[in-house]
């Protein structure tokens, strides 16, 4: 059978999360039938949804936050009553990714390496003057860890489920698509407690069911998801002439309407005006979620609040939308999803993400046509991408994002994460805090962003830590075979062969162009 290792790298790295080590046979399988290997995943519909013990629905999680906030408030009031002179306590501050510089690299790197080292008892680190038995038996003394609140626990549970899925799947194309769409329609967990607890559920509920479905359905699911409504402030937006707007003397918030057109669908220069933004904002007034009192519905669930909705028809992109309550906005979104600018914007972004920073125009045009012809069938779009010659011919020049890099490393080392802490901390350090981009435009998608000097140095430090912890149990040349086989450059092979220790060899392998580029 003809084997094409270079094409296997395209299949595994450009489209997927990299080859798994151990006995997976990923590289050989991908080399035997590169396109088939990628497309096989598209046929497995059950591989899209993510269900795991402990993952809860958005309303349940919303209620958990409300309950937690009530508890904090009661505790504060009790403390105030007991000591009236005391300064008011701060509510637990949300962790902002902007604080990531405060992390110690060593803590992080120790963690990532330690946790990637799974539960091998010999590979644990203790504080000075303490030792740990390298025995299978549980240690005798175990201090109680600092308790996590429900928001932190949920975030970690969601992160772990996502990481485990990405580590275990065969190719990872679907998971890569999930990450792509999740970043396209991003929310940021740093917006507040609700955003943090909802970040994982948002992806599971609004993104995953539609990754191989229709764009219009994903668009509707996203814009009606409480996490998005909270992130872009639509729950505060009142129709100026609505009953609530009249009563409260407050009005529109255009944040979500603008980002729907600028970032989610038409793109900058996609043919909309400020007037269109305002119209869309009016159209989606009343799109909100039920609060802790549950006056509008189940707390934490999407509701349409007719009292906040701007009455009357609205003109949007040259078309009049008659007043129809919730249906007015749904009709508008369905039309925007079909707009030629949307087809162009999505096709461009998809090709830029998977193929090249400067997307080949012919491929973009082809995907745009597929999008139009199939009315936004995302499975057809993904299939067309895999079927294109450009995607297989373009050199592997895209830089792996920090998330790609960490997941690919874990896969190659055949280590299923048991705890997300190492990954989360490394992502913070490398500038891609999970589900927490600094703006609604998501994380950057160009090589320049991820091949920055500081980032490369930190990647090397993290790779060195992984090497130090995991290197003595691996054969680096076997891993190179799993990762790239004969597609590895002679220089990379020699660099790894000549490393002075297995530990150093592993660090160099993880940092090699074969592992950094996709």
């Amino acid at each position, binding site marked *: 059978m003809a084997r094409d290792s270079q094409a296997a790298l395209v299949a595994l790295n450009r489209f997927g999360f990299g080859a798994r080590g151990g006995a997976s046979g990923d590289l050989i399988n991908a080399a035997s039938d590169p396109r088939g290997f990628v497309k096989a995943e598209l046929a497995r519909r059950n591989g899209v949804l993510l269900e795991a013990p402990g993952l809860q629905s958005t309303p349940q999680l919303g209620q958990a936050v409300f309950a937690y906030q009530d508890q904090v408030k009661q505790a504060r009031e009790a403390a105030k009553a007991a000591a009236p002179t005391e300064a008011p306590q701060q509510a637990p501050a949300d962790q902002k990714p902007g604080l990531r510089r405060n992390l110690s690299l060593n803590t992080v790197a120790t963690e990532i390496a330690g946790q990637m080292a799974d539960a091998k008892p010999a590979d644990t680190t203790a504080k000075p003057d*303490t030792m*740990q038995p390298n025995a299978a038996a549980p240690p005798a003394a175990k201090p109680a860890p600092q308790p996590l609140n429900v928001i932190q626990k949920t975030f970690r549970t969601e992160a772990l489920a996502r990481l485990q899925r990405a580590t275990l799947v065969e190719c990872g194309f679907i998971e890569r698509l999930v990450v792509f769409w999740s970043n396209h329609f991003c929310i940021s967990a740093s917006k507040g407690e609700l955003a943090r607890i909802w970040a994982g559920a948002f992806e599971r509920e609004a993104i995953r069911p539609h990754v191989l479905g229709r764009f219009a359905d994903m668009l509707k699911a996203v814009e009606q998801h409480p996490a998005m409504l909270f992130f872009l402030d639509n729950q505060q937006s009142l129709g100026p002439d609505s009953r609530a707007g009249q009563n409260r003397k407050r009005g529109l918030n255009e944040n979500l309407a603008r980002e729907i057109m600028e970032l989610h669908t038409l793109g900058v220069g996609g043919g909309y005006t400020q007037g269109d933004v305002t119209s869309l904002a009016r159209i989606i007034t009343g799109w909100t979620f039920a609060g802790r009192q549950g006056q509008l519905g189940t707390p934490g669930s999407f509701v349409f609040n007719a009292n906040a909705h701007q009455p009357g028809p609205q003109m949007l992109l040259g078309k009049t939308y008659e007043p129809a309550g919730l249906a007015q906005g749904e009709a508008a979104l369905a039309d925007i999803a079909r707009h030629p600018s949307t087809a162009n914007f999505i096709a461009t972004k998809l090709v830029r993400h998977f193929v090249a920073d400067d997307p080949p125009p012919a491929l973009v045009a082809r995907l745009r046509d597929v999008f139009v012809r199939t009315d936004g069938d995302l499975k057809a779009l993904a299939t067309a991408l895999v079927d294109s010659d450009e995607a297989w011919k373009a050199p592997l020049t895209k830089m792996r994002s920090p998330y790609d890099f960490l997941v690919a490393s874990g896969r190659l080392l055949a280590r299923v994460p048991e705890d997300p802490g190492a990954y989360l901390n490394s992502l913070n350090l490398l500038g891609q805090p999970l589900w927490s981009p600094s703006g609604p435009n998501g994380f950057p998608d160009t090589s320049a962003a991820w091949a920055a000097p500081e980032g490369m140095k930190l990647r090397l*430090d993290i790779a060195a830590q992984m090497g130090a912890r995991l290197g003595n149990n691996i054969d680096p040349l076997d891993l190179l075979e799993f990762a790239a086989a004969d597609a590895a450059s002679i220089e990379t092979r020699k660099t790894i062969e000549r490393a002075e220790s297995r530990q150093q060899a592993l660090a160099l392998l993880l940092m090699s162009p074969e592992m950094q580029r996709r």
Partner: protein
Amino acid sequence: MIDCVENRLLTSRRGLLLGGASFAAWAYLPKFARAADGRDPRLVVVILRGALDGLSTVAPVGDPDYAGLHGSIALAVDGAHPALKLDSFFALHPAMPEFARMYRDGHAAVIHAVATPYRDRSHFDGQDVLESGYAGPGRVQSGWLNRALETLPRGERVSSGLAVGPTTPLVLRGNAPTVGWAPVALPQADDDTAMRLVDLYRHRDPALAAALSQGLQLEKAANGDDMKRKPGNQLAQMRQVARGAAKLMAADDGPRIAALAFDGWDTHANEGGPVGRLAFLLGGLDGAFAEFESGLGDRWRDTVVLVATEFGRTARVNGTDGTDHGTGTIALLAGGAVKGGRVISDWPGLKPANLYDGRDLKPTTDLRSVIKGALQGQFGLSDRVLAETVFPDSAAAKPMKGLVA
């Protein structure tokens, strides 16, 4: 992200002692032997990964061919940085004054022209042979030090092997219980790894070469140092590792056997002579000896520190002022229990005809004999146990006698 609370498993020594029946206690010496002389022996094994240049560490300055072969990096007993004379023939690298003092006091020894049975010059396989104690690579996932530990009679005290560093080195892996300790702050990627990566990028990925070089420069600027990536950091790390291990081993209920590894000895280019890269690393090793001595306190008396490396380096300096993978090299012993003040060597000479493969110092002593001698001297292991269990099929490599006082 502060919501990632590190949940380290911490075990105090007390916790370790009271750790229940699952955690076996191993004695370090038969009771009668202890009662007889009151010794409480300790053994530290230090692996130098990357292949140490024995000819630049303990230089055969009395060999007429040495200076010519080692060329720009040869040591000399005169000049600005004179090597420290050990006897009429050998001189020690000037970066190692602590080891020199121990040697003068009779508590340090050098064994020269040693090698394991391995001859193929691959770091990975060479380290595998050195640590596993088998004659060839890839045969087993346990180490000779662990098997030695296993043969000791069980007793009432904890004397598990102590693995120092982020992982347990192969030499200490196996069935006998071990404990792990590492400084909390692990070092960042070392200079050597960074330079190798920059070199790979220069050949394959200029954009990443530029980015990484710049990132490293930024760090240097931030550290106000234009020579190396935190060189003090690496030296401090080596000392810190030794200090921590010594503190643990000094305790009455502490481990009697430990293993650790120092990296960075693969000096293919710009090795340096009396000053430079190798000198810097040897200074770190010397600092570690000093830390063991002071940290073990009264226990230093009964201690042997054994330093070994996977193989040696070429006798002839290469075209980039370094040395390539070779064969024969040195082993070092230091500690109050060492019968020292000696360079033990059946010196093969450096004439072209005497070099192994025409390029390396020819090994005349099996490193296993040295290790066996240290194990026998410290713990009384029999020739048979050493030849069958600790180093399988090694009867030909007889334990070297008289290494331990």
